[in-house]
């Protein structure tokens, strides 16, 4: 099995050829070459995507050469497949050159698209939602980052005194809370990926962001209370399926209670701030 990994050139040249064919057959826009496909695009803590042209090789190589069971620690995906756009100048890599010369815009667009799709998956009622345990496969942390910062900023603007402390406390509590909640699920024997869960808890803050924004703009206390309660319930509703799917049914409450507690305390924070 690892033999194939040490003969990279054959694989890569074959996949290079396929890649070139794809490029010539597909329209020039790189964005359309990127299909809505299962997660081969690379991701990391801050979302990453590389140019789409290298996706086809990855799609082909892993099923054939990588060992089937879960490889722990550091499985070197030792297919240095046709990514060699920088070195191999001779090949007619039209589109990769475009993604290099304007990598930022295309990748930004793609990342934004991913944030939007993650948001829709997690937060909005979606009858076509697939099994929650698999839903946030291509997690990213940009969304959660923006939401936490936005919530901190809104709370800070709403506060009349001690603005800096409010922001710092909000940010620290949300970040630390997400990490601790994830650890909680893992310690309860749940099956969830660390970053996936962080990403999820961050996305579920979106309704509270809306609530905080409304709270900042509206001065009537009753209206603020109602709106924040509704958004709080929405956050909890959004987080529920993922968290409960991750753990043993008997431990569902143990996993969910801290999540609800976190969101409820953030909700109180929003209501109480003046």
């Amino acid at each position, binding site marked *: 099995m690892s033999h194939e990994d040490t003969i990279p050139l054959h694989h890569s040249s074959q996949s290079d050829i396929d890649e070139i064919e794809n490029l010539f057959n597909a329209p020039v826009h790189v964005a359309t070459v990127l299909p809505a496909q299962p997660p081969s695009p690379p991701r990391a803590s801050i979302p990453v995507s590389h140019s789409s042209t290298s996706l086809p090789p990855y799609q082909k190589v892993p099923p054939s050469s990588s060992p089937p069971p879960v490889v722990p620690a550091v499985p070197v995906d030792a297919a240095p497949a046709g990514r060699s756009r920088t070195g191999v100048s001779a090949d007619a890599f039209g589109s990769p050159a475009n993604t*290099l010369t304007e990598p930022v815009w295309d*990748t930004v667009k793609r990342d934004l698209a991913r944030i939007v799709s993650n948001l829709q998956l997690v937060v909005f009622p979606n009858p076509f939602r697939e099994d929650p345990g698999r839903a946030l496969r291509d997690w990213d942390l940009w969304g959660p980052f923006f939401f936490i910062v936005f919530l901190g900023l809104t709370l800070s603007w709403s506060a009349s005194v001690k603005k800096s402390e409010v922001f710092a406390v909000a940010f620290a509590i949300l970040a630390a809370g997400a990490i601790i909640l994830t650890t909680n699920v893992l310690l309860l024997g749940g099956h969830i990926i660390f970053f996936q869960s962080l990403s999820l808890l961050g996305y579920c803050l979106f309704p509270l962001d809306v609530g905080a924004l409304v709270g900042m703009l509206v001065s009537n206390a009753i209206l603020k209370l109602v709106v924040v309660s509704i958004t709080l319930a929405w956050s909890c509703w959004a987080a529920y399926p993922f968290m409960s799917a991750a753990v043993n049914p008997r431990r569902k409450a143990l996993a969910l209670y801290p999540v609800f507690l976190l969101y409820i305390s953030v909700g109180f924070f929003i209501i109480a701030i003046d």
Partner: protein
Amino acid sequence: MDSIQPPVENYANPRTCLFHVLFKGAALAFYILSALFIDSFVIIFVVTVFLAALDFWVVKNVSGRILVGLRWWNEINEDGESIWKFECLDQESLARMNKKDSWLFWWTLYLTAVAWLFLAIFSLLRFQADYLLVVGVCLTLSIANIVGFTKCRKDAKKQIQQFATQTIASRFTSSLQTAFSVV
């Protein structure tokens, strides 16, 4: 700095090098200078962390690929397990990488982490917990990139060795075969 083994060629990708350094420098500069000009901690926090996050993204997605031909990422496979993948270009392309580019890449990567470490120590000594938060986030991002790319590079070296032994072995067998066929 130029007296330390200046590579002979010029930069092959000047714009990428610029961006690679730009956000790092901007984050550090803003953080250091902001103490002089800006009162609001919130602005310092948001701008610095945002610049650091942008820098992380640029290094991981763009300059890592272009300057040194390495990449790392995380995937979640069908079983729901998380796999870290480390990737490098094939050997010919790696050999053709511009030395100056990769020199710049690695040095700035390490230097930024060291700089953030110093700033962390400063804010620790001054008991400023909120500034420590900012510096902590930026330090974490820098270290994540360093760890990821160093692992990539180790794997690349391992692959070079494997490839070399493979090539030697295949050449040896083929020369043996020709020897025997002649006989």
